[in-house]
C-alpha cells in the first residue's frame, strides 16, 4: 500500500457526515434506497486518495514510487445540483470519476453515499449504489460497442439489475428512453455506426438513465462533439436533470461549458482541489492563482476584448504526479511563490482575510497568498 502524503489530512470546511451504521445488508440497501431532500448532501467525499504504484522488476516486483493521481480531496455533492470539476489533463479528474463509480479502489479516504461509505460496501449494497450512480463517457465513438444494437446497448443495464425492468417490459422501456433523449424510438435495431457523434452521445446518456440513477457522472460528455451539437446535448442534459431530479458531477476542461451548466465548481491541480465554490465565486472572484491563470487563458469569442484582456500565461508543464513538488503543488508555475509555499502545504479553506467578510471571495481556496483578481471581465 502506498504511503500517504502527510498533508492528506484535515480539510476543515466540509460538512459533517452523518454516517449510517448498517448492521445488515438489508439495512444498508434500505439506507441507499432512501430518498434525499433537495439541497441535502447526497455524496460526500472525504480525503479521497488514489495512488497507482510504480514497480520495477519482473519476477520480484518492488515498488519504487507511486503516481499520486488523487491525493486527498474532499467535497460534497448536493441533491439536484451540478458540481463541475475542471483541471488540466493529468490532474486526476477522471480518476475521481472512476473512484466514485467504484471502478477503482481507493487507496485511502471515504466516499459516503447517503451516509454509507461505498469504498467498503460489497454485495447487494454495492450493487444498489452502482445502480444509483451512473456514468456518461467522453468519447461516444469508443464507448458504444459497435457490434451491439442500440436496443442492446441501452438495455444491457437491465441484465445486471433485472429488478428495474422485467424481461418482457424492456423493449418498451428502451424505446421510452430513446424518446426521452430525443431519438426516434424506431432506431432501436440500428447499430452505433449509423449515428452521428451527437446522436451517439444521446445513446450514451440514455444508457446512463436506464436504471433511474440519482447521480450521473459525466466525464467530458461534449468535448468530442461539434460546437453546434454541443449546445443540443448540454440543453438535453439540463432538461433531464429537472425531469428526473438528477445530481450531476460534470467533469470537463472547457471552462465556459462548465460555468454554463454548474451550480458549483471545483478546480483541481495535480491530484488536489485548488479551489471550490459556487460558479460566481469561482468565475468572478477567483482567489487561487491557478484558477486565475486557467480562466485568463480561455479564449473569449469576442475580438473586442482581445486587446484589453490581461492574460496570465503559465510557463512550463504540469509536474509529474509521481514526483509532485513539496508544499503547494502549484508553486513551480506560480508567480506568487515564496519560500513558505515550498515548506507548507496550503489547506483548502476559506482564506483568513476573507473569512469574516460577506464578499464572494470568501470561499475555499488552497493558497497561502489568496487574493481576489477578476480575470474574466478585465
Amino acid at each position, binding site marked *: 500500500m502506498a504511503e500517504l502524503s502527510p498533508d492528506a489530512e484535515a480539510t476543515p470546511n466540509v460538512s459533517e457526515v452523518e454516517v449510517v451504521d448498517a448492521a445488515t445488508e438489508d439495512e444498508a440497501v434500505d439506507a441507499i434506497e432512501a430518498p434525499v431532500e433537495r439541497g441535502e448532501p447526497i455524496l460526500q467525499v472525504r480525503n479521497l486518495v488514489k495512488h497507482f504504484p510504480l514497480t520495477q522488476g519482473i519476477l520480484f516486483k518492488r515498488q519504487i514510487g507511486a503516481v499520486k493521481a488523487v491525493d486527498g480531496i474532499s467535497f460534497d455533492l448536493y441533491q439536484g445540483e451540478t458540481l463541475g470539476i475542471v483541471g*488540466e*489533463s493529468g490532474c486526476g479528474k477522471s480518476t475521481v470519476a472512476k473512484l466514485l463509480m467504484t471502478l477503482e479502489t481507493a487507496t485511502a479516504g471515504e466516499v459516503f453515499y447517503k451516509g454509507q461509505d461505498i469504498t467498503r460496501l460489497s454485495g447487494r449494497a454495492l450493487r444498489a449504489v452502482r445502480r444509483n450512480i451512473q456514468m456518461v463517457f467522453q468519447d461516444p465513438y469508443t464507448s458504444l460497442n459497435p457490434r451491439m444494437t442500440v436496443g442492446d446497448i441501452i438495455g444491457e443495464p437491465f441484465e445486471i439489475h433485472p429488478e428495474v425492468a422485467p424481461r418482457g417490459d424492456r423493449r418498451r422501456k428502451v424505446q421510452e428512453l430513446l424518446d426521452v433523449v430525443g431519438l426516434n424510438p424506431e432506431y432501436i435495431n440500428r447499430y452505433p455506426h449509423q449515428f*452521428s*457523434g*451527437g*446522436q451517439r452521445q444521446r445513446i450514451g446518456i440514455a444508457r446512463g438513465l436506464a436504471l433511474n440513477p440519482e447521480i450521473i457522472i459525466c466525464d467530458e460528455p461534449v468535448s468530442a462533439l*461539434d*460546437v*453546434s*451539437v*454541443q*449546445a*443540443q446535448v*448540454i*440543453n438535453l442534459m*439540463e432538461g433531464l436533470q429537472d425531469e428526473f431530479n438528477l445530481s450531476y458531477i460534470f467533469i470537463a*476542461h472547457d*471552462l*465556459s*461549458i462548465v*460555468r*454554463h*451548466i454548474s451550480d458549483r465548481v471545483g478546480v483541481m491541480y495535480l491530484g488536489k482541489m485548488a479551489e471550490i465554490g459556487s*460558479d460566481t465565486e469561482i*468565475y468572478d472572484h477567483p482567489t487561487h492563482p491557478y484558477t486565475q*491563470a*486557467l*480562466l485568463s*487563458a*480561455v*479564449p*473569449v*469569442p*469576442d*475580438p*473586442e*476584448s*482581445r486587446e484589453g484582456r490581461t*492574460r496570465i*500565461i*503559465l*510557463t*512550463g*508543464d*504540469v509536474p509529474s504526479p509521481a514526483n509532485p513538488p513539496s508544499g503547494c503543488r502549484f508553486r513551480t508555475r506560480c508567480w506568487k511563490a515564496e519560500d513558505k509555499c515550498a515548506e507548507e502545504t496550503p489547506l483548502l479553506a476559506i482564506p483568513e482575510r476573507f473569512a469574516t467578510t460577506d464578499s464572494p471571495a470568501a470561499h475555499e481556496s488552497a493558497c497561502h497568498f489568496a487574493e481576489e483578481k477578476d480575470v*474574466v*471581465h478585465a
Partner: protein
Amino acid sequence: MTTIEKTADDAVREGAGDDGTPLLEVRDLHVEFHTRDGVAKAVNGVNYSVRAGETLAVLGESGSGKSVTAQAIMGILDMPPGRIPQGQILFRGEDMLTMAGEERRKIRGRKIAMIFQDALSALNPVLSVGYQLGEMFRVHEGLSKKDAKAKAIELMDRVRIPAAKERVSDYPHQFSGGMRQRIMIAMAMALEPDLIIADEPTTALDVTVQAQVMDLLAELQREYHMGLILITHDLGVVADVADKIAVMYAGRIVETAPVHELYKRPAHPYTRGLLDSIPRLDRKGQELYAIKGLPPNLLKTPSGCAFNPRCPKAEDICRTDVPALVQVTEQDGTELPGRGSACHFWKETIHG
C-alpha cells in the same frame, strides 16, 4: 453555376485588398471523394486568399471541408479516392495544381508548411525529434547530419523548448503534448516558409498550454511576416488571433468577414447560430441556443442552400436555389470591405 461562382470570386478578391497579389489564392476549388456509396463532395467551390503577415481563420464543423481544402493546397490529398475536378490554387500567381511534381515539392515545406492537429501521430515514434527536425535541412538544403542536428537544436531553442541540447535526441513520447506541438511548429518553421497552414493546432491541448502555443505561433508569424491559415472549430481561438474569417459549411464558404465584424454582426444564419450556441464565461444564460438537426451528409447534400434543413429562416427559395457568396453592404448600399455572405436573406440577418 459558373456565373454564380464568379460573383463569389469577386467578393472575396476585393476583400483581399489590392496591395499586390496575395500570397496564396484558392479559386473555385472542388474536391470530391469517390466511395463505394457514391461521390462525396467535400469541397464545392471554395475561394479564399491570404497575404503575407495576415491570419485567415477557416472556421467550420467536422465535415465542412476545411481540412480537405488545406490538404489540397499542400498536395497531400489521397488521390484516389480524392479528385480535384476543377479549381485553381495560386501561390504567388502560379497554379500549383498544374505544376510538375518536382516544382511542387520545392514549394512544399520551403514555401508552404503545415502544422497538424495531433502531434503524437504526426511525428514518427521511432526517430528522435532531432533527426526529424534535421530532415528538413538534410532533404531541402543538403546539410550534413552534424550541421542538421545543430540546426535542429537552434530550432528547438527558438520554439522555447527548455534544455534543447539535451533533449534533441529524445523521442516524441518523451515530450508532453504542448512540447510536441512546439516541435511540430519548429518543423514547419524550419525553412522559414512564407505561409503556414495550421490545422487545429491546439485542439488536443489544455487551455493553459493552448495559450502558450498560440502566443508562440503569433510571435513567430510577426517575426517572419508569414501568412497563416488557421483551421479551427473554436470560435474563441479565432477571436483571439484571426484578422479575417471564412466560415465553411458543407464544402462551401458561407460567410467571409474581418474578425471584429463577424462577431458583431454576422450575416449568415449559420454563423449567428454558432455564435449564439457557445456558452460564455462572462455571461450565464438559462438555455443555450442550439442549431437544430445535424451536419449534412456529404453524399447527399440538401438541394439549394445546404443549411436550409437546419435554418430558422429557410423559405422555398432556399430549398431550390444555391445562394452565391455576395458582397455584403450597409443599409444605404455602401460596401463593407471583405464581407460576403451566401444567404438569400443576408440583408435580414445582418440588419434585421
